[in-house]
Each structure stands twice: as structure tokens, then as C-alpha cells.
């Protein structure tokens, strides 16, 4: 455990808060106990629309993670010079710039993936998980904590996208690893495994909701099975919103 020291901040609105959180606690919270995807249910639009295959889930997940880490870092660095009444527009500006940057980078280096994810890359800007982390965490914590928090929440979101993408692709289309070449280049074009002819419903929007519902049920069943551990990790988290 890290030694607790007060945060030096002259930002009145935020000064009331918080000792820096322990890095492992922050990480666990982002991946599991306060996961943006299946605990907070943030970012439902990309989560349900993109996860028709595992590859798209991974792609959008990592793009979101990148934005989240950078935006958390920038928000944390600038937290002492941001006027509190201007903080939301500032976050929006920072996040929008980052998303534009990543959109352009993907367009340049992962063109196939960019073509498929298309609209959902610019839409990362509206993913409430990102601004929620900026407001609830990064604006009140040192840079290291903010970066870890961004990484953990990003990976947690990616995890949900991957699980949804995996099951929806496997059961809905009856394939696995389709379209991986848009992520890993032409070597991956032979990775596609075709299992059966598919159960179309799961590819369609109602199937996305069904799959998410099942995932939430499974997650709740898991945490109900070990109540002591999940309670401990919740009480270790200093930030709640």
C-alpha cells in the first residue's frame, strides 16, 4: 500500500476530496467492481452496436482505452489550472481533440478497421464512460493514479466488448476471429473459424440486448458467489459518483 498524502490543489470545488487511491485498488475497480461496461452500464451504444464480432469489439475497445488513458492523463495534469465552472467544456474539448487524433491515426494505419468501425470512432467522444472518469476521478487525483484508472477502465470496457463480441459472433454468425485481418494485418485472414450456420438473432440488435442481459446476470451470479471479496474491493475505492 502507498503512503497516504494530501493532494495539493487550489481548485476550490474539488479541494474537498480525496487522498490518492492505491494503484492496485484503482486497477481492480476499473476492471471488475466498478466496470464501465457491466457495472455502470456506460457506453451502451457502441457496446451493443459494434460487438457483432470479436475483432470489432477488440478494435473499438482499444481505441476507447487509448482515448481514456490520454484524456485521464491530460485532465489530471491540468486539474489545478482548470477553473471549476469551465471544467466540463474543458474535458469535452480535450476528449474531442484526442478522439479526432485517434480517428485520423486509425484512418492512416488501420484503414480496414476504420472502415468497419466508421461512425463509432468519432462517437467515442460521446461515450459517457470517458467524461465520467474525467469528472469523477482524474480531476481529483494525481497523474499516475489517473493514468492507471484510465487504463483499468479502458481495459474493463474492452473486456466487456470482447466477451460480447466473442459470444455474439460464435453463436450469431457461427464463426470466430472473422475480420481479424483488419486488426492484425493479412496474416490473420486465415484465422477465421466457421463453426455452424449461425443463429441470426444474436447478430441483430435484440440479440445485443439479450447477450448483455445474460452477461450482467452471469456477472451478478459471480459476485454473489464471493460476497466478501467484492465488498472489500468496493470499500477500498475512494471515489464514487
Amino acid at each position, binding site marked *: 500500500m502507498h503512503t497516504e498524502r494530501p493532494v495539493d490543489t487550489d481548485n476550490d470545488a474539488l479541494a474537498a476530496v480525496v487522498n490518492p487511491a492505491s494503484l492496485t485498488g484503482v486497477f481492480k475497480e476499473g476492471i471488475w467492481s466498478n466496470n464501465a461496461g457491466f457495472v455502470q452500464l456506460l457506453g451502451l451504444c457502441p457496446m451493443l452496436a459494434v460487438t457483432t464480432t470479436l475483432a470489432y469489439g477488440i478494435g473499438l475497445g482499444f481505441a476507447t482505452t487509448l482515448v481514456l488513458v490520454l484524456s485521464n492523463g491530460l485532465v489530471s495534469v491540468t486539474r489545478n489550472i482548470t477553473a471549476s465552472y469551465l471544467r466540463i467544456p474543458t474535458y469535452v474539448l480535450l476528449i474531442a481533440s484526442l478522439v479526432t487524433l485517434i480517428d485520423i491515426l486509425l484512418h492512416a494505419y488501420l484503414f480496414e478497421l476504420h472502415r468497419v468501425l466508421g461512425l463509432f470512432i468519432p462517437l467515442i467522444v460521446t461515450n459517457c464512460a470517458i467524461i465520467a472518469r474525467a469528472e469523477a476521478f482524474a480531476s481529483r487525483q494525481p497523474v499516475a493514479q489517473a493514468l492507471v484508472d484510465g487504463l483499468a477502465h479502458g481495459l474493463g470496457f474492452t473486456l466487456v466488448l470482447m466477451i460480447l463480441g466473442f459470444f455474439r459472433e460464435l453463436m450469431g454468425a457461427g464463426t470466430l476471429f472473422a475480420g481479424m485481418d483488419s486488426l492484425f494485418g493479412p496474416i490473420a485472414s486465415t484465422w477465421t473459424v466457421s463453426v455452424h450456420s*449461425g*443463429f*441470426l*438473432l444474436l447478430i*441483430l440488435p435484440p440479440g445485443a440486448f*439479450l447477450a448483455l442481459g445474460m452477461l450482467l446476470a452471469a456477472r451478478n451470479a459471480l459476485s454473489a458467489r464471493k460476497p466478501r471479496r467484492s465488498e472489500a474491493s468496493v470499500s477500498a475505492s475512494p471515489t464514487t459518483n
Partner: protein
Amino acid sequence: MKFIQSSAPHIRKPRSVRAIMFEVCLALIPAALIHVYFLGPGLVLNVCVAVSVALACEYLMLRLRGQSIAPFIGDGSAVLAALLIAFALPPLTPWWVTATAAAFAMIVAKHLYGGLGFNTFNPAMAGYAVVLVSFPAELALWTAPVGAQIDPGSLSLLQSIQVTLTGSLPEAYTWDQITQATPLDSVQIGLSQGAMLSELFYDQGLTTYGAQPWIAINLAILAGGVWLLGRKLISWHIPAGVLFGVAISALAGRILDSDAYSPLFFHIFSGSVIMGAFFIASDPVSAATSRRGKLIYALGIGILIYSIRAWGSYPDGVAFAVLFMNMLVPLIDHFTIPRAYGHAR
């Protein structure tokens, strides 16, 4: 004794869920016999698969939910839902399609919503809609009825079982040989290709009531439905509303353009309007509650069935119409609360 706030007689014999479900199943028997006569033993196989899967899923879900098993599994609601699914699917449907429909109906549409009495959606139609969306190719294969223009190389019972289990035909047969588009399907396809309605009916040998086997099956279902009405198991509001909804839309279509919209009785006696009106929409759990509400609910179903048939991409629309109106039931109920005696409107 139970007192009900309406005019006399006030004393009614309480019916158990089990007795009601049993009588509704009984009312389907004549239709089943005619179905088997015209379309082969496929229906019986569908029933076997659907009933056993539905009961297994019901048992599983009751166990998981910690409910008492014997009274709920014995109430017959799972069997009735399975029968409705079996009727909705074509004969010779591969077993995994039927099983998926029955499992979805029981697990998701019924028990995840809280079990019998709490399900928002009609379980049988939810299960059917899932497989209709997921397995469009399998669900388009209706066996050609006896007496059809093309000669169906009729399958024996053993061969039918084989097809149901494997999903593929014995070597001497092809699907083109033993299946035929239903009247609704062929008319919809013909119209979409720009044919005139009168030519289509002539070419297909259809009367204004449709094709003979389907009329016979629908008449048998109608007989069962009328028996249910006579036994006061269902109220007249829902069947009347559905039939009226289909009828006024069909008449409006005829007046608008009699070369593009099929005749009224063709709509009623082809496909599953009668089944929907008497056996599916009348499910008391997922239908509206008050009499006025029931009429609105049923009218909506009728108009939607016609709209899906006339302008949709599916040849029949009973399942989607029922599910859609199921969704509106809370709204309908909210606006049709009956006036309590002595209170202002």
C-alpha cells in the same frame, strides 16, 4: 364463493389453470387431425419436440427459481405454448429449430419475466418470432398439401422422423419436390414481381377463400375457437376485434385497388389469422384487461397483421402483431380503466 362486480349471476364456478389449459389444448385437436391429413405427420413430430423441450425448460427454470415444481409444471401452460409453437412451424422443421423456439419461449419470454401471470409477451409467439428471424430458410419450407397441383412425393412416418432429426431429406427427394409456397407467400411474391392479382389467383388455382387445405385447417381451428367461446374460456372481444381489424383493412385495400390487395376471405382463411384471434391473442396474461382495452388491443393486432402482410417483407404477421400489441398493453390498460360506479369519468 367469489363475487364479481357485474350484473347477476354472481356465483361462478372457479376454474383451475390446469382445467382451462386442458380444454384449450382439446380445442386444437380437430385442427391437428386435419393438419396431419393434409400436410403429413410433421405436426406430431413438432409437438413431440416442442412439448418435451418446453417441459424440460419449465422444470429447469422452476428449479433455478426455487419454485415448487409439481403444481406449476402440471398446470399445462407450457404444453399449450408448445402446441402453439408446433402449429406455427412448418411440418418437417428440423428439431433444433423447434427446440430453440420452445426453449426461448419458456426460459426467456416466460420465466425471466416472472413466470405464468407475469409474462409481458406471449411466450409461444416470442419463441416463434425468434426462430422466424434466426432461421428464415428452414421456416419457409412448408410441405405441399395433399391434392396440390404438384405431386408431393409423400414421405412415410419414418422418413419424416429422419428429416426432423437430421434436417436433410432422404436421397430420392428434393425440397423443391415436396414443398410449396403457402398461398400467402406465393401471392406476396407474385405481387412483388408486378403480377396482377387475378392472374395470380388463376395460376395458383386459388379461390377467393384461398386454397382448400388451408381453408379446411382454418375452419377446424375456428370450430375449436367457437367451442372455447361457448365454454366461456375466452371472451368474444379479442377474436371479434382481431377479425374486425383484418376485415376493415382488407376491405379498405379492396376499395383502394382490387388488383393489388387480396380479397377479405383470402386473408382470413389463409395463414394464421383465426389461430391468432382465438388461441394466441386471447391469452389472458399478455392481453389487455378491461373489455374496452381488449377491443383496442385486438383491433390493433388485426390491423397490424394486415399491414405486415400487405406492406411487410414477411408473408404472415400474426406473431409480430401480437408481440407489438403486447408491448402496448400497459399503455392501453392505463387509458381504459373502467369507471367505478358513482365516480365521475
